[in-house]
């Protein structure tokens, strides 16, 4: 089966995308020296043309994804997390203009035809949606729906399908899988629905699992259980996971690497320890500062909020998009008129801040 999907992608893509790999090959990212990445995104840009202007939903996003690793993408609403994920699978509406490269299995998925994408979607790269109730078909039995996800890509008999469906439901921790498979999504609890979504996503044993805010709609205990399901899956299948979330707690628990996005741009990228213990971008620092933590020394310390609102993606602030809200910004200087490049600040940690190296010495401009 490896042959099937791989070959078809190769063969079909060579004629349309026979361009050489033009991405910045000198790209240094957190994650050098771990072999070939399974997915490599280069300069991914997504724009929507609207009557008011061009919406820059994702701007020059680049990252590598490695087998058996989890990449957390964090950011506020509208920071381009979901758009990036949708762009990888070519799921954006036709109104979106996507540029850049998404290299998977030797082919560029950006601009690929539906025919080329279909054998990849769900089979090699699968997605878990946020709202499981909405993402499950209300008139199909849960079991039939999981079976459907497999029969799209594989010729299996009804018996084989049924057996696998029950194994999958069991794997994601749904009790009485045989009976539950016969039920409909609305008869499931929120946690069970999300588990069902995960079962569907892993049904074809994908190389990459993209989870778009999979725990946002769940309460905390169920969240922990669902994250546990992701971890157990990775332990066994070595799937690479992209975990999109705005919840830093989720990222801290599950991710190996973290990509922080702001206004469609990558602002920081590093290992989970780097991001949490030595953030090199003011936005990351602000995010962490707004997070309630049990391990803070002084219990009476107040949570700090990030003043202001995320910017409009049509009228982005000049220079660094974060400068109007930044505590460290040089408002008279470079921050307002020069867009900072994403650069290595040591150990492969990337930061898009003009003052990434001197953040600790800079006095915050407190109003």
């Amino acid at each position, binding site marked *: 089966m490896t042959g099937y999907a791989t070959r078809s992608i190769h063969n079909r893509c060579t004629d349309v995308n026979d361009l050489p790999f033009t991405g910045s090959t000198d790209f240094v990212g957190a994650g050098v020296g771990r072999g070939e990445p399974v997915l490599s995104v280069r300069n991914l840009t997504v724009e929507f043309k609207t009557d008011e202007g061009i919406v820059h939903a994702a701007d020059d996003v680049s990252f590598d994804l490695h087998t058996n690793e989890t990449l957390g993408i964090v950011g506020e609403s509208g920071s381009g997390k979901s758009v990036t994920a949708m762009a990888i699978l070519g799921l954006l509406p036709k109104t979106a203009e996507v540029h850049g490269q998404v290299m998977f299995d030797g082919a560029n998925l950006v601009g690929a035809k539906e025919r080329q994408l279909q054998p990849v*979607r769900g089979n090699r790269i*699968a997605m878990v949606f946020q709202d499981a109730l909405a993402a499950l078909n209300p*008139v199909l039995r849960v079991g039939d729906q999981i079976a459907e996800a497999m029969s799209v890509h594989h010729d299996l008999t009804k018996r084989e399908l049924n057996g696998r469906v029950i194994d999958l439901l069991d794997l994601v921790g749904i009790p009485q899988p045989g009976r539950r498979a016969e039920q409909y999504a609305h008869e499931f609890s929120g946690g069970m629905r999300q588990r069902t979504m995960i079962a569907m996503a892993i049904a074809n044993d994908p190389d990459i699992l993209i989870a778009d805010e999979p725990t946002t709609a769940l309460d905390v205990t169920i969240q922990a259980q669902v994250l546990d399901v992701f971890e157990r899956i990775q332990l066994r299948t070595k799937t690479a996971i992209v975990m999109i979330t705005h919840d830093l707690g989720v990222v801290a628990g599950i991710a190996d690497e973290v990509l922080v996005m702001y206004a469609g741009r990558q602002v920081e990228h590093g290992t989970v320890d780097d991001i949490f213990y030595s953030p090199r971008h003011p936005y990351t620092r602000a995010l962490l500062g707004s997070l309630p933590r049990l391990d803070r020394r002084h219990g009476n310390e107040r949570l700090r909020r990030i003043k202001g609102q995320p910017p409009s993606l049509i009228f982005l602030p000049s220079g660094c998009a974060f400068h109007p809200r930044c505590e460290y910004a040089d408002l008279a200087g470079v921050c307002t008129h020069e867009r900072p490049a994403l650069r290595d600040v040591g150990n492969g940690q990337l930061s898009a801040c003009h003052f990434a190296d001197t953040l600790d010495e800079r006095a915050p401009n407190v109003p």
Partner: protein
Amino acid sequence: MSRLPPPADVLEAEPVVADEVALAPGTEPVPRTNWQLFRRRFLRHRLAVVSLVILVILFIACFGASWLAPYPRHPSAVDLLLGTSSGPSAKHWFGTDELGRDQLTQILYAGQTSLKIGLVVALLSTAAGTIVGALAGYHGRWIDQLLSRVTDLFLIVPSIAILAVALKKFGQTPNWILIVLAALGWMYVARVVRGQVLSIKEKEFVDAARASGASNRRIIVRHILPNCIGPIMVNMTLAIAAAIIAESTLSFLGFGVQPPDNSWGLMLSQAEGAAAEFNRFYEIFFPGLMILLTVLAVNFLGDGLRDAFDPQSVH
């Protein structure tokens, strides 16, 4: 198939944390087949059940007319010569027409044509309308423009006139009638299905299906149309009723089936003379009653089916 190892090998089951508290005995989910659930929901709809029974009886009676009808379909010449109109009696439950033919017998035979036209026209036009509506709604853009304008075109032509001309040209046989009726009746279903598909294709489960690699055809057939089954069923039952009525209208106007074929509409038209005479009311009453009964029963049945098809209704 090598990409699909049996999950039991790779992922040998490990005790998993259940987020559900163990269910109390007796409340655990009972496995039910699709059919059982469907039947259960349908049976809650009393009127629909009664309607189904009436329709089944009508169908059996009409299509078993050769065995069930009390008198021969074509009476002998002598009987016809001697026959005269008479009211309902123990001998002739629905009376006789002016040629002395037993009305009950005639109604049963005529019902074969009327019911066949109703059912087949509804099936054909629903199928055609569903295909057109689904394609227009799903693909949008120029496909939608094209199909919707064709639908509009069919809607604005005066159908009775087209029917009359077409039937005069092709011949007024039941088969041509049902083809022409279906050709002029699919637009209503197409519009309804298009609207449904337009709203359902925006649902997240359609995105999820695309994300799992399903093709457009698969998405339409497996994910979108099953969600439209309610409106489609209701429209199909309405189409049965509409076709029976349309056939009656055509026959009444003289463009429908011709003797020796018979239909309820034709019986009505032949009895038009009786309309003036109150004591021959039965010649209009009984064929009319049959049409009314069928149309009503079919509508109630449609209601019941719509509810029964919806897995989220009572179960």
